[in-house]
């Protein structure tokens, strides 16, 4: 099977977000594989273990993402591509999916796995957009996957309920928490990862121009949510409190 994984390097979930000059600062920040993409990598390796084939991990990002790609190789992926997007000025999810679509143009694909969302921007767009461009079906927020005779039986999480979907390969799926428990890369895996192929591609290599992949959104401002204000405790009899509350909701909070 030709198994592909879309992977993004993101902030460690433990990091505090600092905004500087209308940008989220990445000074001294630890990076990780986007946790949802880690589920995708694990599922891809499990598919390979069950059905044979090859797992290729692709990321669009900066040079530093090599570290996260090596981690995926250490977990058991076979090869990796890093598509450099450093030259794209106004970059958003449509850029990523445009670039990925160009990458996949000449690839034989049985399944593409990605994360449901990234833990930084959290838009959940890249998977579905890419599938549209490749004209293959997609199933999001999956929590279970079985493949036989080129048919995938997928359980997906729909706001807490489960839906079972059957779909022909090729397909693109995005992983939701609960799909699996990602393995730790083993020590031999880590040592072998450096010998596995990791290719860096420039937009040129995909016959793309920077302006072809400019983002469609415009960032007007970046700011942190307002700090939580101290609460207020109402006093008096319950009826008085209720009356006071309703009044405040009308006059002060202006929500009713």
């Amino acid at each position, binding site marked *: 099977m030709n198994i592909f994984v879309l992977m993004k390097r993101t902030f460690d979930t433990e990091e505090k977000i600092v905004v500087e000059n209308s940008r989220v600062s990445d000074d001294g920040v630890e990076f990780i594989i986007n946790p949802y993409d880690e589920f995708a990598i694990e599922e891809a390796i499990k598919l390979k273990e069950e059905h044979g084939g090859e797992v290729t991990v692709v990321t669009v990002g900066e040079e530093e993402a090599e570290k996260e790609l090596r981690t995926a190789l250490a977990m058991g992926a076979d090869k990796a591509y890093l598509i450099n997007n450093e030259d794209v000025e106004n970059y958003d999810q449509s850029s990523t999916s445009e670039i990925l679509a160009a990458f996949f143009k000449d690839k034989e694909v049985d399944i593409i796995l990605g994360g449901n969302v990234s833990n930084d921007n959290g838009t959940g767009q890249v998977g579905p957009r890419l599938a549209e461009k490749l004209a293959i079906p997609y199933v999001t927020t999956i929590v279970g996957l079985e493949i036989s005779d080129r048919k995938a039986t997928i359980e997906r999480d729909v706001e807490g309920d489960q839906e079972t979907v059957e779909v022909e390969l090729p397909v693109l799926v995005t992983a939701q928490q609960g799909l699996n428990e990602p393995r*730790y890369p083993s*020590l*031999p895996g*880590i040592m072998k*990862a450096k010998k596995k192929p990791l290719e860096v591609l420039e937009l040129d290599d995909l016959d793309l121009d920077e302006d072809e992949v400019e983002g469609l959104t415009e960032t007007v401002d970046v700011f942190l949510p307002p700090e939580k204000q101290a609460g207020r405790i109402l006093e008096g009899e319950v009826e008085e409190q209720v009356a006071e509350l309703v009044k405040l909701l009308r006059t002060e909070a202006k929500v009713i």
Partner: protein
Amino acid sequence: MDFELSKEQEMTRRMVRAFAENKIKPRTLDIDKKAQFPKDLFDEMGALGLLGLPFPEKYGGSDGDTLTYAIAVEEIGRVCGSTGLSYAAAVSLGASPIYYFGTEEQKQQFLTPLAKGETLGAFGLTEPNAGSDAGGTQTTAKLEGNDYIINGEKCFITNANYASILTVTAVTGKDARGKNMISALLVPADTPGVTIRNAYDKMGVRGSDTGEIFLDNVRVPKENLLGDPEKGFKQFLYTLDGGRISIAALGLGIAQASLERALAYAKERKQFGHPLSTFQAIQFKLADMAMEIELARNMVYKAAWLKDQKKPFTKESAFAKLFATETAFRAANQAIQIHGGNGYMREYEVERYLRDAKLLEIGEGTSEVQRLVIARQLGC
């Protein structure tokens, strides 16, 4: 000069930290309180290739270097001293001498299952009457036909009750000058005449297994002699030099944990209307801890690097062991102080750091012995 770790070293740190935080940490209090050796964790560590970290792939190892191994010990030690000690001993004392000095057959037979983490090994040097003075070994191994017959007693041996292969030192004869020749022999733990007892109620590293070994007319084939019979003493000194790097790394881990705990607590706890971390007396403690830890880290990594470069490292591993373990003790002590009364309570963990760190100033050569080693290297 390049202080950058390789990608493999960084990945190893991340992986081991995640494993330690997720799998070991929830159990550290129990491991200590109940003095429970976490056998199942060692099975998992074996499956991840940690027990064969610094050995070649052809013996079931992971092909890592000493520095990567030191990082792994540091990360486990940061979470659990007991697990860290048994891990360091399994690799540096249980498996390493076979790798350094074993024949091809011995490596295939004895090292491979250790490196794969299928079993554990132990190294028995210390005896009731031979501790710091290892030359005073009284256990004997007499050649009888094609077998050695071993008699004697070993004490304080890490992992002994869980080991399937014991490397024991014994007097095998006298050299030309009439001095005792000490060699190491490989003894499968199930050989008739071997009795292993779990006899200790320890102050710290309580979940690390420590056993007594009695050897009563134990017969092993003469092929089980490890390395050069004339150079046995030199060989175990080399083994200990390597082991010291891992004990130093363990000290580093405990010291690091002490600092992290103390810093977090100092920022949280308020007295006189301010967090403890705003008081200069507390700040100075934290500053000293952080500085000593970084100095210790540089020394430990340098000693590991020298070993990897196949350069002499006897003096540097003694520096590293002495400084990192004494740093661990001081850091743990200050961490308790910064926690006040809470620090004296088990659930805050820093009192365990102190109990665990104390062992590191004793095992694999006491602090005094490290100073002796250094002085000898200086030409005294």
